[in-house]
């Protein structure tokens, strides 16, 4: 399968532009660096591990905060490790949760080995099969503005086809306790 050459940094910069009070969970590795390059902020929970868990963290958060929008931004490899989450989330159907997968067809962080999506596995079709009703695949830069809007108003599952090129690392704090406490303080106030 060939991937169109959307630049991941530019794509994520567009999707996360003016995040406002959007709650963001970013999967480990490059999606974390992309989200951080778009602007480190307390309401980004950027993972350094927990591979396969990003979408489920988003679900717990979305159920706990029904009045807020939650966006999970993760990689194809990370999503593949937790495919069952697509079924679990579809059953719960939280209206305030969207998931965007940055699909480069690679396990970028570990040496760019081909992932299953490079061999034809279609994450959008998996999501549809799990019962997600709003699903899209984006391949063109011109589609990103529209996607940005949809991710903030719909329970959307989006596959964003990006080029396999890696971008320089832009890293948030590594201390998970710090990431956790600053997120809760920003969302819930310092008493919590």
């Amino acid at each position: 399968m060939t991937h169109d050459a959307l630049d991941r940094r530019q794509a994520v910069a567009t999707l996360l532009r003016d995040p406002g009070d959007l709650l963001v969970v970013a999967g480990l590795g490059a999606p974390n660096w992309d989200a951080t390059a778009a602007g480190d902020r307390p309401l980004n929970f950027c993972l350094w591990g927990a591979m396969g868990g990003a979408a489920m963290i988003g679900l717990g958060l979305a159920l706990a905060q029904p009045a807020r929008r939650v966006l999970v931004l993760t990689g194809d490899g990370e999503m593949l490790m937790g495919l069952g989450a697509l079924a679990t989330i579809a059953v719960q159907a939280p209206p305030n949760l969207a998931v965007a997968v940055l699909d480069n067809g690679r396990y970028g962080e570990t040496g760019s080995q081909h992932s299953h999506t490079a061999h034809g596995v279609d994450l959008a079709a998996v999501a549809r099969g799990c019962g997600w009703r709003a699903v899209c695949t984006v391949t063109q830069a011109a589609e990103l503005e529209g996607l940005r809007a949809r991710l903030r108003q719909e329970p959307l599952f989006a596959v964003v086809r990006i080029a396999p090129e890696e971008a320089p690392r832009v890293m948030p704090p590594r201390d998970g306790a710090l990431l956790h406490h600053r997120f809760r303080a920003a969302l819930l106030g310092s008493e919590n």
Partner: protein
Amino acid sequence: MAGAWQDEVFETLRRAAIRQIAYVPDAGHARLIERAHADPDMRAVVLTTEEEGVALAAGAWLGGQRAALLMQSSGVGNCVNMLSLPMSCRMPLLMLVTMRGEWGEFNPWQVPMGNATPGVLERTGVLVRRVERAEDAAETVAGAATLAFDSTVPVAVLLSQRLIGAKVWVR
């Protein structure tokens, strides 16, 4: 088979302000699962694998809610790497684990993970408490919930197979 202690444990979870109950079914949790689905204040979340529940509980906590995670001992093996999430982030986690493979077990495939369960949890940093008698169940869960959410640590309560009642195997 739904004894009074399961209802007491459910009330304990309610009193501990648990709002999300995630599970992969086990017969020993059937009553709790039923109660969770019937309770308008609770969100019951059926999982495809137990590690999903560890991540869900972290998300719930980030959002200001408390979750409890129900599984049988075989599911503890499915959680191992995901436990690095509450450990690295110093987050609470409350797991209720029904034990298999330790007493009156008919299924040999349950024995290895049942036997490894307390050790695996301890080695990953999860505090382990154990219930042998029905009259201790609610109190142990209450203490574990306070420990987990007020001291922000992962805690597992193991509900012994003898307490649950060995599954009767009819050939």
